[in-house]
């Protein structure tokens, strides 16, 4: 009787519930199967050295599904498969500073998640971000750049937050924090500044010193500066860069800098940069010079390289730098080999090369090289079904290969052949 | 206000009264009952409609019907035994009084009218006699 009387209400409700439940079950199954499970498969070596690495990248498939993905030794996580709230909240894939959000939730409010803005040690967590205030005068825009500084004292759990204008008369067109260090109660902010001067584009690598007792900028030191002609008739380009791992948030006493002269080749006119600002193929590098800057003493020293090394460095594009307590390292790829130059920080002398033979390891040129303590981690950037991305770990002291593995798909089936993976970062915890 | 024997149905009287609007309705109802009793159309002991039925038949307020019955009961015109329907009184004395009352009322009205036009009593009585008989014949002829 009740059913008969309420049949419209009951039928409609049942239709809604059944259809929607079916839809959401089906959708969750589709999402679950949309992206293949990936794993880090060991080919040889000690698996324990890859326990703490997170490799992040993007997955693309032909039906236009794409998702950021993270691979660890425990498997893969896709951004699109995260729960609603994880998706909402997470910095995904997690980077070097992502975990701070859990540890220092209040401190991390309204802060950019870029690792280069952070410094972390036992006592302090420091952050320097850049804020810009733009004013418009008719058609001309005027930018005022500010450092947003916040330093958390971990023992007192108090933070000192303030905002100061980036000094200088020039109308900067770009200000970026490259690294933040805390040295003897002073913040050292390594800053990349760009502006136009007399129709020349000027790049400066500056170190600003901020006194944390007065919250004022007490010093600035221009490490390197270059001027490049913005007009079309130039045929060369000077490039300056900080080679320290800009994702590193730990204490570093030295900055490793590179200045390179590039000449426009006859045949190629296209300009192309990769994301680290290193000039890629198409440019003839005519000179490379390397420097070390001591943040504490503010001493600036060139590194003297042998002719062999200098020549090799002129014929390669993949130059990266690394730093630990007592050594600086410059890595580059030459003739199918990865060479590591070992520079002692006490006398800036160059020790013997460490060489990894990539041809033997079947690794392509496009890689990311990372260093952690005394190990070197190398990861291939691209992979597809036919050519899985390789991950190797080597010992910096001996040049021995500690681990060799590749990122492969679990339960491969034919339908998922049309995909592509691009890895762009490796986090070593 | 002519009633016919044929209107008596199953011992219940069907009535129709043309009320005037200025006299209390209950008084008019009582008046009507008295006339019916006096003329013998309501026989002694005859069952009369309930208050509700009366109100319904006369299209009057049930409270008014109730009041009329109450008055009539007090005057002894009707009586109610336990839960039975009310009946017309069997008391000959009451019926006689009602009859006399009505006659007296009519006579008083007559006298008042006649006096107001200064007609000698004898002349008036002769005319009454003649017309009374005619009217009665006419009525019987109609029926």
């Amino acid at each position, binding site marked *: 009787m009740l059913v008969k009387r309420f049949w419209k209400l009951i039928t*409609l*409700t049942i239709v*809604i519930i059944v259809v*929607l439940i079916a839809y959401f079950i089906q959708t969750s199954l589709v999402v679950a199967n949309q992206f293949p499970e990936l794993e880090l498969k060991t080919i040889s070596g000690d698996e324990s050295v890859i326990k703490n690495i997170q490799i992040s990248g993007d997955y693309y498939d032909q039906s236009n599904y794409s998702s950021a993905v993270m691979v660890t030794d425990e498997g893969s996580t896709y951004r699109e498969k995260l729960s609603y709230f994880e998706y909402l909240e997470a910095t995904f894939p997690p980077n070097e500073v992502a975990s701070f959000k859990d540890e220092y939730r209040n401190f991390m409010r309204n802060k950019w998640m870029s690792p280069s803005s952070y410094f972390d040690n036992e006592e302090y967590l420091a952050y320097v971000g850049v804020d810009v205030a733009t004013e418009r005068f008719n058609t001309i825009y005027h930018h005022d750049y500010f450092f947003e500084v916040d330093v958390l004292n971990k023992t007192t759990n108090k933070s000192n937050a303030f905002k100061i204008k980036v000094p200088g008369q020039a109308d900067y067109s770009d200000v970026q924090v490259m690294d933040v260090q805390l040295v003897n109660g002073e913040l050292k902010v390594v800053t990349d500044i760009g502006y136009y001067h007399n129709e020349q584009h000027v790049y400066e690598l500056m170190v600003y010193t901020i006194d944390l007792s007065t919250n004022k900028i007490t010093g600035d030191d221009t490490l390197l500066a270059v001027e490049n002609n913005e007009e079309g008739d130039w045929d060369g380009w000077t490039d300056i860069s900080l080679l320290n791992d800009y994702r590193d948030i730990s204490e570093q006493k030295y900055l490793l800098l590179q200045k390179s002269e590039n000449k426009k080749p006859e045949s190629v006119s296209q300009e192309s940069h990769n994301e680290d600002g290193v000039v890629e193929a198409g440019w003839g590098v005519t000179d490379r010079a390397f420097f070390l800057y001591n943040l504490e003493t503010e001493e600036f020293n060139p590194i003297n390289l042998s002719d062999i090394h200098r020549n090799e460095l002129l014929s390669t594009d993949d130059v990266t730098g690394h730093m630990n307590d007592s050594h600086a390292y410059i890595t580059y790829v030459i003739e199918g080999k990865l060479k590591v130059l070992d520079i002692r920080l006490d006398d800036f002398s160059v020790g013997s090369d460490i060489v990894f033979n990539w041809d033997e390891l079947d690794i392509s040129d496009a890689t990311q090289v990372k260093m952690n303590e005394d190990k070197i981690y190398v990861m291939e950037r691209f992979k597809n079904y036919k050519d899985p991305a390789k991950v190797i770990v080597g010992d910096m002291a001996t040049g021995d290969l500690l681990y060799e593995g590749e990122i492969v798909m679990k339960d491969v089936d034919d339908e998922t052949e049309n995909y592509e993976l691009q890895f762009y970062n490796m986090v070593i915890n | 206000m002519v009633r016919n024997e044929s209107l008596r149905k199953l011992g219940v009287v069907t009535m129709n009264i043309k009320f005037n609007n200025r006299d209390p309705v209950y008084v008019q109802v009582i008046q009507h009952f008295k006339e019916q009793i006096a003329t013998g159309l309501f026989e002694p002991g005859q069952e009369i409609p309930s208050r509700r039925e009366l109100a319904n038949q006369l299209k009057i307020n049930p409270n008014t019907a109730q009041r009329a019955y109450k008055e009539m009961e007090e005057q002894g015109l009707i009586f109610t035994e336990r839960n039975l329907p009310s009946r017309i009184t069997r008391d000959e004395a009451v019926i006689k009084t009602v009859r006399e009352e009505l006659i007296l009322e009519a006579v008083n009205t007559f006298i008042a009218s006649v006096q107001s036009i200064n007609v000698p009593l004898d002349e008036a009585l002769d005319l009454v006699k003649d017309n009374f008989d005619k009217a009665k014949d006419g009525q019987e002829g109609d029926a």
Partner: protein
Amino acid sequence: MMSYLKLTNFELSRFFKMYLVLIGITLVMQTLSVVWTANNYLGEINEQLSSGSTVEEAINGWGLFSFDFITRGFWFSAPILLCIASLLIYVFFIWYRDWLGKNTFAYRLFMLPTARLNVFLAKATAIFLMVLGLISIQLVFLTIENELMKMIVPNTFREDLTINEIINGFDYLRVLYPVSFIQFFINYGIGFMAVIVVFTGILFERSFRWKGIILGVLFSGIALIVFFLPILLHETILNHFFYPTELFILMLISGLIVIAGSIWMSNYLLNKKIRV
């Protein structure tokens, strides 16, 4: 509770014929759209084949037929828009029909021996169920139409899409059918809130007539501000203070406040201010 259910059922019944007509129009128009679009495509293919092209060339020329061809067409969307428009209009009409005409049903509704709020909630529930009903039935139709398309277009010329791919291929379908249940809950929760606020606005108008329109608009404006208050504060004076989850919870709370406030206000108007 029983009165609420009875009233809900009653409200459904009052629109049911119209509702079935809407469903019928949707089914007929979309089915015709499938047949027409598919036949058009096959016609073009056949023309090219008969002019001496190979199957590959024909496919290269016209592309593989997929359900997207249909969903992008006017006759597929038209009934959906018609349904949406009808229900939007009915959000108002569900109240005004009780006052319009000789038969003032509002008298009856407001003299029922039950809380007047039940009338309000029943109307809101009816609208909500009808919306979800159309959404669900469209999903069923989509499945049927997809199969129908497969029957018309031969395998060679066809790229089969799943329901999710069809939905993802089209913007407004993605709003109607979000992938995540929580997103679904949010989308329709906001819709439900909007209906409740509009209902309150209508009751303002029914209570105070011309003056009520102003009050209703004012109330809706306040409701809007209250709902978006967390985001407004977050973007302005709080300078992006909140984390996304916190903002979500605050929006959920502000949404619930708006819903509760609207229901409270409606209850007050229905009991103290309404004019029949």
